[in-house]
């Protein structure tokens, strides 16, 4: 693998609330290389967004506390760095787009102006230069009639167009890493496909590293190179996408995969995972999935480490994966 752009090591994030300490992310590690697409998968409350919010410095502190670990971009440690250093990394080097583009765009400014502002603020471009470049960029992200759209306000854009505008803003400074947090969740299925295609195509053009955060196993299946599955703040499985989707190893990943309703294939009763995720305030000492796991056994009272499985590209945090057990049905 190439030299990683962004390295997260043993990251733990806690929220200190009235209700107690919420361990939102526990000991998470990952690396992202240029040209790579990594998907972080998980259900609500799994902590999938928190790790990248820590990268972007978007966590509200307090109540959030980075309890340990490191986040490195190239040679720079982001945790505890000077704000001036971070400003040159977050935004210009690592950009982010969000689930709800309406609340991420400022409603009182024209969309074009908001994109142009990126050039003016960070690169000191002149008014007309910023305008030309913004219109080029809007064209590139597939906004039709960019000259007219440049002068419109966010509410005059549809959901899909707003997300394109957000992508344009994120791309303005040619970032090396783009983080997309549930970029298509608020969009209709036909528009979802358009946005995923756009992201894939931009990544191919620019060779940037792309992190996709989603709860939807389907949306990222065609674009992800690597997958991280999170449950209750912990990484439960990592691996290359193709072999992960073909054969998920962790009982949670397996259950999740089977509970996705399909538009093809046999119409059997949907598989469901019984119970609900544990409260992150009060995580069990052992495996967090033990209470819902169909394969639970004695050793699950110990917290499992990530164990390598099969070829070296994959790991899973389950006591069972290291042993030669038959494929569970």
């Amino acid at each position, binding site marked *: 693998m190439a030299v990683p752009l962004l390295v997260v090591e043993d990251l733990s994030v806690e929220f200190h609330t009235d209700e107690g300490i919420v361990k939102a992310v526990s000991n998470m590690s990952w690396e992202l290389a240029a040209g790579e697409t990594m998907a972080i998968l998980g*259900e*609500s409350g799994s902590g999938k967004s928190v790790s990248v919010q820590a990268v972007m410095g978007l966590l509200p502190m307090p109540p959030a506390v980075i309890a340990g670990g490191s986040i490195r971009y190239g040679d720079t440690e982001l945790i505890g760095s000077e704000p001036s250093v971070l400003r040159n990394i977050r935004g210009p080097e690592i950009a982010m787009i969000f689930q709800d583009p309406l609340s991420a765009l400022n409603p009182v400014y024209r969309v074009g102006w908001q994109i142009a502002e990126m050039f003016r603020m960070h690169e000191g471009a002149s008014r007309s230069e910023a305008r030309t470049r913004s219109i080029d960029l809007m064209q590139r992200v597939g906004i*039709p009639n960019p000259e007219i759209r440049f002068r419109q306000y966010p509410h005059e854009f*549809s959901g*899909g*167009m707003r997300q394109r505008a957000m992508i344009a803003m994120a791309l303005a400074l040619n970032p090396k890493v783009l983080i997309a947090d549930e970029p298509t969740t608020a969009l*209709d*299925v*036909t*528009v*979802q*496909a*358009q946005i*995923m*295609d756009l992201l894939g195509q931009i990544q191919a053009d620019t060779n940037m590293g792309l992190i996709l955060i989603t*709860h*939807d*196993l*389907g*949306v990222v*299946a*065609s674009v*992800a190179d690597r997958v991280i599955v999170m449950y209750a703040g912990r990484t439960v499985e990592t691996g290359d*996408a*193709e072999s992960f*989707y*073909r054969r998920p190893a962790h009982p949670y990943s397996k*259950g*999740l*995969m089977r*509970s*996705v*309703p*399909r*538009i*093809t294939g046999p*119409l059997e*009763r*949907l*598989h*469901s*995972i*019984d119970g*609900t*995720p544990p409260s992150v305030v009060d995580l069990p000492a052992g495996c967090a999935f033990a209470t819902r796991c169909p394969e639970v056994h004695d050793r699950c009272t110990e917290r499992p480490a990530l164990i390598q499985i099969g070829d070296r590209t994959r790991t899973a945090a389950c006591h069972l994966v290291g042993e030669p057990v038959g494929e569970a049905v």
Partner: protein
Amino acid sequence: MTIEPLLDVRGLVKEFPQSGGIIPGRLSPIRAVSGVDVQVLPGQTHGLVGESGCGKSTVARTILQLDKPTAGEAIFEGRDLFKLNKSDLREARKDIQIVFQDPFSSLNPRMTVQSIIEEPFVIHGGAHKSEREAEVKRLLKQVGLNPEHAARYPHQFSGGQRQRVGIARALALQPKLIIADEPVSALDVSIQAQVVNLMRDLQRELNVSYLFIAHDLAVVRHISDVVSVMYLGKIVETGSRDDIYENPTHPYTQALLSAVPEPDPILERMRERRVLVGDLPSPADPPSGCRFRTRCWKATELCAEEEPALEDPGVGHSVACHHPEVEVAISSR
């Protein structure tokens, strides 16, 4: 069809007045639903799918008369719901219940689960306090919740559990029809499957009918007997589940199905995506003729001039298209 439908909605139209403008009433109203027919058979599920803004939720709300319909009729057990007087409507509402999308806003946060589920009994009279308590316990058990938790408040439950509470409330009066408006779209995948399975089990047990409204075609496939696809206030294709998923004929249905991502990278790469261009036109100013023509790759002049009727082009189910693709199925199959 020989079986008498339980609910037979015909020609449903719902217009919303447009606010704004200097002179009130000058702007023409927005037609959210523009002549929709839907039948629900006893003990079956009719799935109504479409993207946001297509008017599917408005159909639900007008049938229940949470919004007053502009035109059309809804025959339920031989009587037109839209013509009932206030007290008859109250009676009819015992038989038709609704389950909402948002498990957080659909339950009154100041009421215990006990009082939420027993409210139908209180409103419609009858049943003493002890009977009601027993009934609530029974209902909680039926939807897979712990009957001991009746004294708790909604915020003490997870999203999936709240949706079960909502279902229990809907079941309380033993309705014949439940209108479920996006009942699982706010839930996590693993929980979504639990709720879909619960609804199927309850249907088998109680012979209740569902009008199941959703944007997720995959979920609809797992629960529906009949499926209708809506676009911009109209139904563009309707047929049995197999008709719609095995033999989609309207270009919009095909595009919708081809856009549904599958959790399988290899299959995804092999699939030929039919990615629609552009966005949904404004329902305030729908395109002339066929409403889908602005995004359709098969559109011709005819489509702009004449509105296609919803009829069978020889595929065994109804399609509103001048150029139906009769034999082509999506390529992943």
